């Protein structure tokens, strides 16, 4: 009995790799010109809304209050310092500090995240990055999950507490411009993969991310108006006004569902590649947390 099970396993295994060879057929939304080293200000050549959101201290209330034009400020009108109201993101910041201090009682949690001498300033700007230990591209939240597990605490990527710690760690980089380098490997390939995924159509709709955020940007979709995909990342994780603390990947699962596309697991390589792509498109924009948006 034991022998025949083994025979079965041996005979069936070698078939798998041959099947993986050919890429499946997909439709694509056409690329716009992203260049090799994108930055948030490149949006001026795309939706040309950069002028309205580049400085979150100077948002024009006439535009942010307009039912037809508010999409042009790219949700920056709810960022501090323009908007200093209290919201759930502030609760998350406090909770994040509490959990962080518990984890970092001996200082090795900060070290595991990559902080030098426990200093969290600027740490957010080093993510997403290639992680030798984890063998792939990781965002801050994936690294938090890994480093918390080392301390014996389960902080599932995408969970409230994981995201709260991310908001807390990110807050030390407030005001500092994002600056990931996608001109060198392995980040260069991650950027290219993310760019391709962003334009790849899937789901019952046969929509890509770019269907809404490139082809239909600024168009009315029954009360929703898709915004530019430039300049977004500086205020993530964010507090959604539907009362939910969301990491970027949790948001991706919602984007996918809204577009009729099967969501992937939080922390998957695909979502990390899209994170690299979108972070590069936010280069130059300052980190601004806690934030809120619809």
């Amino acid at each position, binding site marked *: 009995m034991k022998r*025949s099970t083994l*025979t*079965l396993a041996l*005979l*069936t295994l070698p*078939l*798998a790799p041959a*099947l*993986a060879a050919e890429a*499946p*057929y*997909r*439709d694509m*939304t*056409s690329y716009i010109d992203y260049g090799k080293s994108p930055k948030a200000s490149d949006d001026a050549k795309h939706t040309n809304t950069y002028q309205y959101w580049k400085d979150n201290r100077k948002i024009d209330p006439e535009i942010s209050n307009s039912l037809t034009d508010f999409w042009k400020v790219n949700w920056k009108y709810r960022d501090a310092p323009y908007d200093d109201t209290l919201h759930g993101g502030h609760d998350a910041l406090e*909770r994040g500090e509490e959990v962080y201090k518990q984890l970092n009682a001996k200082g090795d949690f900060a070290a595991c995240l990559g902080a030098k001498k426990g200093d969290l300033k600027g740490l957010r700007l080093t993510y997403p990055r290639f992680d030798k230990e984890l063998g792939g591209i990781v965002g801050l939240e994936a690294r938090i999950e890994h480093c*918390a597990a080392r301390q014996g*605490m*389960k902080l*599932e990527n*995408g*969970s*409230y*507490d994981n*995201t709260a710690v991310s908001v807390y760690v990110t807050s030390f980089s407030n005001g500092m411009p994002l600056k990931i380098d996608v001109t060198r490997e392995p980040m260069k390939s991650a950027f290219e993969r993310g760019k391709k*995924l962003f334009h*790849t*159509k*899937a*789901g*019952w*709709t*046969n*929509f890509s991310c770019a*269907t809404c955020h490139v*082809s*239909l940007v600024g*168009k*009315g*979709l*029954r*009360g929703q108006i898709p915004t530019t995909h430039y300049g977004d990342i500086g205020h993530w994780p964010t507090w959604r006004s539907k009362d*939910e*603390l*969301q990491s970027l990947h*949790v948001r991706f*699962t*919602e984007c*996918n*569902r809204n577009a*009729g*596309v*099967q*969501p*992937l*697991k*939080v922390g*998957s*390589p*695909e979502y990390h590649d899209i994170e690299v792509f979108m972070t590069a498109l936010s280069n130059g924009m300052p980190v601004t947390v806690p934030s809120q948006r619809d």
Partner: protein
Amino acid sequence: MKHTLLALAVMGLAGSQAARAADSLPPNILYDAAREKKTIWPLPVRNSGELKYNEHRQDLSRWPTLSYQDKRDTKRPEKVELQGPLNGNAENGKKIAMNTQRGNCWACHVLPGDPQGGTGGPPLINVGTWGYSDAHLYQQIWDRRVANPATEMPPYGSNGVLSDQDIRDVVAYLQTLK
């Protein structure tokens, strides 16, 4: 005898595994076979390190995903011929067009009686006066990629979203818009 049976079993298993690999679901999707709708989504729970997973309203795993491990092809553009007379029910077609969970046409198109119709595609307020044949409209809804490979409009027929009769009904509805 025993050996032949085993060999047959091995061949059968290998064959079905080969068939499954091309059609099977990628492992890194949010999917729970035990739930009715299969597709699940993560909800962060305040002051918890774990996610709660809710069921989506629809099984989305039936269509290609963004997973690198998804080997299923997207349906290629399909050219179709409308068979026989249209026989569409315009009233039913309107219900399909103006239902967010079915045709959802109003997400991108302005239709009469909808104050917040979308602007992703052209307004269809008077599409019945544009002089399009039933067969043309049928093809556009079934799969508009045949006319325009770069279209962002969902291929309702090719992707199995709307049935032949559903599309006949929507065409009948559109032809009444004058």
